[in-house]
């Protein structure tokens, strides 16, 4: 069952259409939310909330549009909202282990997973909105135009945000690789 047919089913009230979408997009949605929040439990909650939002608003979804960008926009927006309202959402006590504290043993981690660790470190230093832009651009592979459309922000603003986020990311990576000030 492709997305189009699954959504048609869901629009008719057949919830098996939503099950198809959950099975297809749940992992990508949690990973997207996780890259923004650094919290696997919260990311899971965000993914589930996003699918509930899909269920509630599927009648407004235009079948001529692709589902994934529309859905991922929901995921990103809920993730950003959750980060703003940290007190209102569950906090994962184990998140530090998943996004390891670089400063605890930087040399060892650098050797083991040099590139990955560097990017982890850099992502941690970004604000959630900056991370959202980086995730959309690098993880979801959206163009500037697609990010502008999905986040409903002016293209110029998005271009500037992507540029600023990339610059900051690259600067932080440079710092990491050269052992610069941290």
């Amino acid at each position, binding site marked *: 069952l492709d997305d189009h*047919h699954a959504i*048609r*089913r869901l*629009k*008719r*009230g*057949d*919830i*098996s259409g*939503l*099950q198809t979408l*959950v*099975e297809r997009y*749940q*992992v990508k949605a*949690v*990973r*997207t939310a*996780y*890259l923004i929040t650094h919290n*696997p439990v919260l*990311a*899971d909650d965000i*993914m*589930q909330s996003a*699918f*509930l939002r899909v*269920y509630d608003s599927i009648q407004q979804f235009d079948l001529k549009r692709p589902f994934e960008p529309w859905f991922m926009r929901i995921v990103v927006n809920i993730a950003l909202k959750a980060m703003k309202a940290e007190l209102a959402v569950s906090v994962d006590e184990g998140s530090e282990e*998943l*996004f390891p504290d670089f400063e605890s043993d930087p040399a060892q981690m650098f050797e083991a997973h040099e*590139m*990955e660790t*560097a*990017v*982890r470190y850099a*992502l941690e230093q970004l604000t959630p909105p900056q991370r959202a832009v*980086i*995730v959309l651009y*690098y*993880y979801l*592979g959206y163009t500037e135009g697609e990010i502008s459309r999905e986040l409903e922000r002016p293209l110029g603003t998005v271009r500037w945000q992507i540029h600023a986020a*990339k610059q900051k*990311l*690259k600067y932080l*990576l*440079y710092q990491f*690789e050269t052992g610069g000030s941290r």
Partner: protein
Amino acid sequence: MNDEQIKQAIHTIAQNDIGDNMNRWNDIYQKIDAQRIRNRPVWRLGKLAALAVITLIVFTMTGVGVYALYQFVLNDEGITAVEEAGMVQDINLSETIEGVTVTLQRGYADANRIALWFSIAGVELPEGQLVGNFFHPYIRYADGQILNPRGTGGSLISTGEFTYLITFDHEEPTPARGEFEFVFQLKPGEVYILPPDYTPVPDVSLEEYRSEFTLVDTFSFTFTLPVSEALTFEPDQTVESNGVSMTLETLEIAPSASTLGLCYDLPPNGDWMPNASVRFDEGQPVVLSGVGLVEIPTPEDTRRCVNVDVPVAYPEGAAVAEVIVDGLLASIPEDLSLIREQAEARLAKLGIEVEFITEDRGQWWEIVSKPEGMDDTKANRLVYDSLRELYEGEWIFRVELPQ
């Protein structure tokens, strides 16, 4: 570090920290289910078996509730057909708790639904019409998903032993194919035992007829049934009639029932639902059993999509399935007096005379006369349909079946 390296690293982090092995469907489904219960008032029953709806009209007003559904005999051609074809399996599991014995006798399952036959003995109740929820049957799959009953038929009169046939739709989520496990439970509760000749009386509470079970515990049966597969088609056929475009998007044919996926233009001023039937080859058309819960349309809604269940038996080897929608029907109004005259005129044309009774606590009708040979079920269904506004039209779809 260039863009491609950053991209690769971010993908690696995501994959390493969040594994591929994930299934959150049950959690999401449970949240949706809870949400639906909270939102129930904005939804409306599209159409159930006519008798069941008649009961709802009476007893929701008098406070007994939807469990009145349980007391009507199920007239289900699809189940009858699979029973005659020997597709129903013996289960024969019994459990006795404090003198009450529940026996799960037989079962049948296909991709559309599950049917169970069971009996309850040892329940001490006064003689009379049984209405109530002293049992709560449901099915639980091995993975924890729960199915609530769709339709039930059984004993009308309490005589110490009750026998029931109950059906469950696989409407959501679609179950796994092949053999799987059910858990079936009964729970105690309260019932109303109405006198055999009881008719609704204004301002008379049903409280005096209430009985409660406190001694009965929960019964549980674990068993397996083979599941017959469905044939699935996506005809995507569109037919125009009386200014309304209707599309048959999907058709699922299981041995005991078929499910139609219909989308159509929504005429104004009504909660329109298709009056659909299905027949195979040149057989008798079987009318729908229901369209489940349908959201009440807003003035902005111009198109509606629904799943329609039709309890039609699939004769193996049939060459053509024909879906006939002979009109769109609006929901029955909450106050029957608004449509009484129109209904009486419609029924007169069919040779049925009926007396409508509207009271403070409920609404009812009595059939005064009907054509010779017409049974009560059919007459009540016609009365029920006469209370609904009709948007005329005819939409017929033919689907060639593989041989």
